[in-house]
């Protein structure tokens, strides 16, 4: 029996795994101590729990526990990495390279850096959503201090070649930061094999709680330092002050441990469902896959259904299926997704896109139902779409003088 609503928006957030919640609960009540209280058992217990979680988190990404800085989430980690490097390495240079489909937490932080006198290059990604390595290398200057490229994109799921990116960076003595929110816990990520110097990730995208994330900061080859962005008690080796969110961190640790143990099995199962969903939906006439077909997260697909508008499409089933659209008909600007536009998609296709994010608890029944509902709604809306009628009559839509508003 299907239970509604079905959740297919796992790139936005994931539910907590019940095993994670179970691990967290004692740290709200009995073991409520402050991890910085050094003089009594409550503090010792909390500190021990945080240390253990730090090991669980570090292990998932192949890091040393001392290289993990707990934060309130990935946005804070993005800010700390970029602003922290910019300030710490000011004597070396002021140039940062990033790309135009990064998450807003990276893009807006870079905008801030520009206001502070920094220089930022925003690389245009290729039509498949991947960074062009030749362009990346060409953008490096003597003043470049950081390359900030996301591991995997949140809207289209494409995975950047981090090893190649870091090899280029190393050649030029530039640090590499990666926002790896969507990748960690979903695919094998190893900061040493991937050559990453700083990396942001968060618990709530991997079946852990909201409000806790981490910044990985390399300690060896090279030893990386960031300037703290929050002043206070000098927690987290002085890089992030603030009382540690012990229950959150415990949950984060447990979530990482589960991902580590079950990733292989889960990837097999989820990618099979994703492939089914993708194959079935691409059978719909005039439907297009967005982003690279191969270099892609196992649980994500993004498809445009030409001649129907994304938000209108969602309305056909959003009582029963939770999905996300690249269309933003809610703002005055009516701007569709900047990520899809960066891939060179026309606004019409960008407005017609749906993002599917499958997860640990997604079932085949849910996928079958989703295929049926999406297909039926696309067909229904095309029956009332003037663009579909024109397309069917062979009218060239570019020949029409649209009243742009």
């Amino acid at each position, binding site marked *: 029996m299907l239970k509604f609503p079905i959740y297919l928006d796992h790139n936005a957030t994931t539910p907590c795994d019940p095993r994670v919640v179970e691990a967290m609960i004692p740290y709200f009540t009995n073991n409520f101590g402050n991890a910085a209280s050094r003089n009594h058992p409550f503090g010792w217990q909390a500190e021990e729990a945080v240390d253990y979680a730090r090991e669980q988190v570090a292990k998932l990404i192949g890091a040393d526990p001392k290289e993990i800085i707990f934060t309130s989430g990935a946005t804070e980690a993005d800010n700390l990495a970029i602003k922290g490097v910019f300030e710490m390495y000011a004597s070396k240079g002021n140039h940062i390279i990033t790309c135009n489909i990064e998450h807003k937490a990276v893009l807006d932080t870079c905008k801030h850096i520009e206001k502070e006198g920094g220089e930022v290059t925003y690389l245009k990604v290729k039509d498949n959503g991947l960074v062009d390595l030749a362009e990346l290398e060409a953008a490096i200057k003597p003043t470049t201090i950081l390359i900030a490229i996301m591991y995997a994109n949140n809207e289209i799921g494409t995975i950047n070649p981090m090893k190649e990116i870091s090899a280029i960076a190393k050649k030029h003595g530039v640090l590499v930061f990666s926002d790896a929110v969507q990748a960690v816990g979903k695919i094998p990520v190893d900061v040493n094999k991937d050559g990453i110097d700083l990396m942001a990730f968060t618990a709530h995208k991997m079946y852990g709680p909201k409000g806790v994330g981490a910044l990985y900061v390399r300690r060896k080859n090279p030893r990386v330092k960031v300037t703290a962005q929050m002043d206070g008690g000098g927690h987290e080796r002085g890089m992030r002050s603030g009382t540690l969110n012990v229950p959150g961190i415990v949950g984060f640790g447990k979530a990482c441990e589960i991902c580590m143990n079950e990733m292989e099995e889960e990837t097999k199962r989820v990618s099979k469902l994703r492939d089914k969903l993708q194959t079935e939906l691409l059978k719909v006439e005039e439907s297009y896959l967005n982003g690279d077909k191969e270099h892609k997260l196992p649980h994500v697909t993004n498809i445009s259904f030409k001649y*129907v508008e994304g938000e209108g499409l969602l309305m056909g089933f959003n009582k029963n299926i939770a999905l996300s659209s690249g269309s933003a008909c809610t703002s005055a600007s*009516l701007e569709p997704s900047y990520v899809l536009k960066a891939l060179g998609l026309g*606004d019409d296709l960008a407005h017609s896109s749906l993002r599917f994010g499958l997860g640990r608890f997604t079932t085949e029944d849910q996928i079958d139902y989703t295929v049926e509902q999406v297909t039926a709604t696309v067909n229904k809306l095309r029956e009332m779409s003037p663009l579909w009628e024109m397309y069917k009559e062979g009218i060239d839509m570019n020949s029409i003088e649209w009243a742009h*508003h």
Partner: protein
Amino acid sequence: MSYSEKVIDHYQNPKNVGTLDKSKSNVGTGLVGAPECGDVMRLQIEVDEATGLIKDAKFKTFGCGSAIASSSLATEWLKGKSIDEAIAIDNMAIVEELNLPPVKIHCSVLAEDAIKAAINDYRQKNGQESLKFNESVVH
């Protein structure tokens, strides 16, 4: 953001979806919006030449639920009205009837524009001058 019940009802059971024969002299067609903006409305009226009243109205819309509902409602209101009455339909009446939130007001504006464009097309076909309308404010 959740939709009002009226928007949902029009979306699920749109009234007057379809196409009228635009080659007929008593049919006026208005096509407004642009695919790049995420909404395109085509609204058509058929005028009874004996009475001067709108005897049929049809629409097709590419857009969000509010755009579909606005055009569906507009066609319902148009039927049985004279051209003068149709010209007087104001987008804010659509906003009120459908309970549209501020971010969706442009959908009602588009519907009003579509009505006016259809009327002008009808007038031109019948040797009358196009009416000049004030530029819509909310776009």
